[in-house]
């Protein structure tokens, strides 16, 4: 008698040969150029090896060959979706060596633009995550509506949409143009509703749930072992957010929550974590606009007419906490001899910058610790025994930016 073909028998008896498949580097869903060498048993992934380095641009080496002033303009390109954070990490590391205190107004400006940048990064992720899951119609471009608004604002203050060169060693580059704060405040008012719209489309959609729930489970211990950071780690139940754990800048004066999932996170939890983070970032921006010393740029500009923008340190409208830069930068910018490390919480996780300076106009050594790199390292473990179709769902959910991996 021929036994009935159960799933179990199929798996045991009909063993097929493993197949080696090369995914990428020119794959539209790999967010850049990532190559995955996959060993497949039928549809199931048995082994996966990411091959990185296709986008290597020697960012660290360039830092040792360009002056500080020139290098600041370059590092936005390390992680092109969140340029503010790379600038911020470098600036903080250099400020630690120099031992300068950044004016309070500049710190608030930094938090505002950085949180805006976090929003743009998460919004782009939301759109591409939809594409990764196969939602080709409509959804991918809805988040771009808000992202455009934010990028327009960032362009107005920094000069370019993504290569900002705005956060500098010792402060920020310039004051906001007229009407900027009002536009931003208006945006933050309508933003939560827009997020709710996306949630209405995605969060409870049965197809979306099937594709994401219990897919790509990242156990807490594994996440810690691999040094995973950012929302990916917090979705696995580790409450590590530098903004809360080691508050830098003015984050200790702001009231915000950090979403942490209390179980081993799957793709859905990582999605949810980022959605809540967007709400929190929005809250942070609102608080900063209310708290910023000196008020909005327009108010301050009016006040400065009285003292004709004297720039003296003891002036009530100009110097001290109300300046945006400790000292105006010039091409001969130098950092004192010494070494320093600083980390910030970027949209992808802890972004660290380690610099050694000998006091000359170029750095002696620069080292970046990029979150995407360690997040990508855990991918082979996550993909094990998942279907090919789930690869992109899982890969999309850990939000890796390839230039950030390869630098």
């Amino acid at each position, binding site marked *: 008698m021929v036994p009935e073909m159960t799933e179990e028998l199929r798996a045991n008896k009909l063993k097929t040969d493993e197949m080696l498949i090369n995914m990428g580097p020119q794959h539209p869903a790999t967010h850049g150029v990532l190559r995955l060498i996959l060993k497949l048993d039928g549809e199931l992934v048995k082994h996966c090896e990411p091959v990185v380095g296709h986008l290597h641009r020697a960012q660290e080496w360039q830092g040792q060959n360009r002056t500080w002033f*020139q290098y600041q*303009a*370059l590092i936005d390109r390390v992680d092109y979706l969140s340029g503010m954070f790379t600038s911020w990490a470098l600036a903080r590391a250099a400020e630690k060596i120099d031992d300068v205190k950044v004016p309070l107004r500049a710190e608030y400006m930094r938090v505002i633009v950085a949180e805006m940048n976090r929003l743009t990064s998460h919004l782009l992720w939301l759109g591409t995550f939809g594409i990764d899951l196969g939602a080709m119609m409509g959804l991918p471009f809805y988040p771009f509506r808000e992202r*455009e608004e934010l990028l327009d604002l960032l362009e107005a203050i920094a000069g370019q949409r993504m290569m900002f060169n705005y956060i500098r060693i010792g402060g920020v580059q310039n004051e906001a143009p007229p009407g900027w704060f009002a536009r931003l405040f208006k945006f933050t008012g309508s933003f939560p509703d827009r997020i709710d719209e996306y949630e209405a489309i995605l969060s409870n*959609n049965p197809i979306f749930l099937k594709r994401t729930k219990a897919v790509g489970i990242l156990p807490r211990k594994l996440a810690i072992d691999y040094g995973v950071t950012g929302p990916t780690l917090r979705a696995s139940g580790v409450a590590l957010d530098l903004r809360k754990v080691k508050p830098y800048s003015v984050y200790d004066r702001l009231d915000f929550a950090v979403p942490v999932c209390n179980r081993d996170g799957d793709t859905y939890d990582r999605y949810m974590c980022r959605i809540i983070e967007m709400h929190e970032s929005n809250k942070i921006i609102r608080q900063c606009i209310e708290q910023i010393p000196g008020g909005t740029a327009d108010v301050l500009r009016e006040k400065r007419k009285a003292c004709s923008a004297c720039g003296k340190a003891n002036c009530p409208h100009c110097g001290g906490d109300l300046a945006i830069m400790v000292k105006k*930068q010039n091409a001969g910018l130098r950092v004192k001899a010494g070494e320093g490390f600083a980390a910030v919480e970027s949209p992808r996780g802890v972004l660290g910058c380690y610099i050694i300076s000998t006091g000359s106009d170029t750095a002696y050594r620069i080292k970046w610790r990029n979150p995407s790199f360690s997040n990508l390292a855990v991918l082979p473990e996550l993909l094990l025994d998942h279907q090919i179709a789930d690869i992109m769902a899982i890969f999309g959910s850990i939000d890796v930016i390839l230039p950030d991996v390869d630098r």
Partner: protein
Amino acid sequence: MLGMVGRAAEGFYQVCRGLWTVFKHSGRPPTTKEFPDVMPELPGAFRGRLALAVNPETGEHLCISCRQCERVCPDKCIDITAHKSPQTGKLELIDFKIDHGLCMFCGLCTEVCPTSCIINTSDFEMSEYSRGALIYDLKRLTLSQEESAYYFAKKDLPPPKPKAKPAPKPEAAGDAGESLAQQPSDVSQQPGPKAEE
């Protein structure tokens, strides 16, 4: 059984809710900007094509050939040719080349320029058929008086002070305004034949 029906109903409701959200968008005005027809309104800080401004009032060229921009440029895409004028003993600009194919629009050159001469304009449509055409010479870089006035106002730059002329030629003392106005046109015409060589 009931559970399954419930789940199906719930799923159906959620899909409808999502579709309704999408459907609501059809009544709203479009958010996309149709670029070639609708030009974007760019902010003053925007870093587009580089250009050299002239004094909006007198029309004299603002560049003093200090080479600060050339030195600071990370991509080494600025090339300045200047010489000491035999009559006045002052630096005189002969040619100013910027290779926009190399430029990364960081704006550092505009930050270090002492006279706000080199500026980022709001122009971004600069596609060309050859790389050579992306190398702009002094003539293509120099803005007209009106354009300079426009950008000085848009970027909120301090108005330039007229150059303190030590009155090199005796006749210049009599009619300073005219000689100032003539000078930039001399300068900008000079490299014309040179660039074609």
